[in-house]
């Protein structure tokens, strides 16, 4: 593969040419209730060639297979000329690197037979149903993936990387006396199946669904709200992703200028694609730029943006290593990876103290944005009464204007944790990328809570 890629790049006549190939081995087993519903594997090899020249915009081509790489680059070059762009591309310079990160995987999911993966999924389903008699139905989806990436550019960058990951998603539906509630949970991590006991995930999801059976709808109103690290991370991801990345195709172009105050001094957030042991982490991005932690908001002020080489070049800044391709055959765009909220001080009890009547959101069902509006829907929630966690409530949704919400941040806890849910981010038409979030507990004051407040 290396020779074919380098040969194709050597013959390219474009000012800049880039060729990325990916080979993905994946398998999945779906258990519906206690029975296997599907088992399968996929093997996909696909690539992406991209070119630009002085005075032209991008031309890019995605393809299946590994043949005719030279003609793929030529087509990309022709498309860059055909576009007739009036906006030439300026790529910010990066150090040229050659990396071979292809050590044998110590826990390769490809070495585990599909039948063994099925047994593992069935065991998780058993754990789900054994947790409580009120679990009426459920689903367990076990997936794994090995991805081999080759990236070369006409500037001399060469990256070859091999990675593996596993993910589990669990759905539980609890039923009692005509009341039906559901809960979802997931886990995604680098590595394979030999390490880690994931039964706790299934049990927690089951307990979450059962807890909701007796939860009463939250009374709409304005509350002090404490978010657990997963919910706080989801909110921060929205802030980092949608306020700090330059415009994407099909996405809302609402990037905040550097120096804008968007929250209190205790709010410091960023994105760290170099964080260890997370699925969205890596040594370099999809343009070959070394990844590094980027602070986006410092003490409540916008300090920087996430950049690809193109957006950094347009701004006269250095790229931050955030160029990520949302599909095997797609172009890289600046996207968030591991968004984090920097820890402050104190633990959950400290944040609950002093809240006479509030809402505690643990875990998040979804966090969506539209324009400058954000809606965060809690998967599980409890009332806070006199500084203590009280009865479970459901239908908790908080939101509104994202900046207004960030402005209501009161205290940031010190108990930082990365959330390893199998989260993906869709942004505009740039495709889906895996993301992680990390945060401590977070308290906001005077937040509208209810159903449909956002």
């Amino acid at each position, binding site marked *: 593969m290396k020779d074919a890629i380098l040969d194709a790049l050597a013959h390219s006549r474009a000012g800049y040419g880039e060729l990325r190939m990916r080979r993905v081995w994946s398998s999945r087993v779906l258990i519906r209730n206690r029975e296997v519903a599907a088992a*399968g594997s996929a093997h996909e090899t696909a690539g992406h060639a991209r070119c630009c020249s002085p005075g032209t915009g991008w031309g890019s081509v995605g393809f299946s297979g590994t043949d005719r790489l030279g003609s793929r680059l030529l087509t990309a070059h022709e498309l860059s000329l055909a576009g007739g762009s009036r906006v030439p591309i300026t790529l910010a310079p990066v150090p040229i690197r050659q990396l071979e990160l292809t050590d044998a995987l110590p826990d390769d999911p490809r070495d585990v037979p599909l039948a063994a993966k099925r047994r593992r999924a069935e065991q998780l389903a058993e754990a789900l149903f054994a947790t409580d008699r009120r679990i009426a139905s459920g689903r367990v989806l076990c997936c794994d993936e090995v991805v081999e990436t080759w990236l070369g550019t006409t500037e001399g960058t060469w990256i070859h990387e091999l990675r593996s990951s596993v993910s589990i998603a669990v759905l539980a539906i609890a039923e009692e006396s005509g009341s039906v509630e559901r809960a979802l949970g997931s886990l995604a991590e680098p590595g394979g199946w030999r390490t880690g006991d994931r039964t706790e995930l299934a049990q927690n999801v089951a307990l979450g669904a059962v807890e909701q059976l007796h939860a009463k709808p939250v009374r709409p109103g304005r509350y002090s709200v404490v978010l657990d690290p997963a919910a706080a991370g989801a909110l921060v991801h929205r802030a980092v992703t949608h306020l700090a990345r330059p415009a994407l195709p099909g996405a809302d172009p609402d990037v905040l200028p550097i120096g804008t105050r968007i929250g209190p001094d205790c709010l410091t957030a960023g994105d760290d694609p170099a964080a260890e042991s997370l699925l969205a982490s890596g040594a370099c991005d999809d343009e070959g730029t070394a990844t590094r932690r980027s602070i986006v908001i410092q003490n409540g002020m916008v300090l920087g943006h996430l950049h690809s080489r193109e957006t950094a070049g347009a701004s006269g800044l250095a790229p931050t290593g955030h160029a990520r391709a949302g599909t095997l055959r797609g172009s890289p765009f600046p996207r968030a990876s591991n968004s984090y909220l920097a820890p402050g001080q104190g633990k959950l009890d400290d944040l609950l103290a002093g809240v006479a009547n509030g809402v505690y959101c643990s875990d998040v069902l979804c966090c969506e944005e539209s324009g400058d509006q954000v809606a965060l829907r809690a998967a599980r929630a409890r009332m806070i009464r006199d500084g203590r966690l009280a009865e479970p409530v459901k239908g908790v949704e908080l939101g509104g204007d994202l900046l207004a919400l960030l402005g209501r941040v009161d205290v940031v806890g010190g108990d930082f944790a990365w959330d390893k849910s199998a989260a993906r981010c869709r942004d505009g038409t740039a495709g889906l990328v895996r993301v992680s979030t990390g945060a401590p507990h977070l308290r906001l004051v005077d937040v509208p809570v209810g159903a449909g407040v956002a």
Partner: protein
Amino acid sequence: MIARLLDRLSARVHGADTVAKIDDVLTLAISPDGDTRVSGSRSRTTYLRVIRDGKIGCASSTGDDAEELIARSLAAADAGPELELLLPAPAPLPAVESHAPQAAGADATALDRLARALLERLQQSGRRVEVWAERSSGSVQVANTRGVHAGYQATLAGVGAVVESIGAGWAPPCRVHAAGAALPTLGDVELLAAEVERRLAPPIMESYRPLEQPLICLAPRAAATFLRPLRAALAGYEAWLGRSPLRDRLGERVADERLSVADDPLAPARPASRPVDDDGVVSRQLPLIERGRLLGFLADLELGARAGVPSTGHGWRTPNATSRVGCTNLRIAPGIEGPATLRTMLGRGLLIEDLEWRGGPNPLAGTLTLSAPWTYLVEGGVVRGRLEGVTLSGNVFRSLVQLAAIGNDVTWCGAICTPSLLVEGLTVTCHP
């Protein structure tokens, strides 16, 4: 490759079917600052499903190595579900218009012309406009060990825009698009431009008397989003064996008697038109709700085997090799009221041009909370202005039972053809 696969498998399994899909996509996008990006993408995937010892195994590949694909599908069968799957026999295919040569042959210049035609009509000061045009051209081949060997060509072409108002008169991003098997015409471009102007023109209402459960007119684009839970409730496992609110209600009245819904893979030149599904089952029009009465659900071969019902020809292969059940082109039959009559019927009510899908507390059960950034106050048949921060909540299935009216303005929104719907019983909250 698919003939080779079945030849090699015939003596080793009880049955097998295979699908080969090729897709060639060309996309041109013009960003608000004038940057033009042209990208092409060609994908080729082969899906194989085997039946061995009563178990099903699926695998897919983008490569040409037949033996490797066979080995993985056999391994998947060892771990796969036990199912009595009866593969279809060969049958004549219906004639369906799924391919337009003009769309298949569209190059970057043709897409650029189309995108710029839309850009010119939308561009004005105080706006950021992003436009795109795309065409996809491909083929699908389906075969099985019972002798089915069918295939068809398909194209899909579209043009669309995201228009953002900046400065005074701010509005959320306005997204419009038109798509079909044929390349959109200048007439389609004019319709899109007219829709954008219609949505952006009314002034923002600074103050108004709140409406808690008003009569609401969902324009076709909003209706298509609103009906997503209905689509889910009519399809697949949830409908036949799961938690669809329509399960076990075949033959019952589930909606207003003026509502008729059908799935139509034979609709000419629509995004999901096809003569045969990915299981090799011949496509046919399928009435789902007729005058408010529930007549049918969608099934593929695997679900049919589980539920003990025949496949309705709605199987799709997914990227991860397994199959799923899904609609093709969903058609809601038109009513008799014109758009002006619907607005008059609103009295003091709301017109919603588009909705943003957010799922909701329980979308399968039809319980939704949807953001409605394109909501207009209508009084006496006249649009007074746009309301900001509107959220719609309620239950889709309850709303369909108490429809106030159905418009005659059927419009294709992607693969859904729907008229305007006049609904009541939904709760509106407004936080401008």
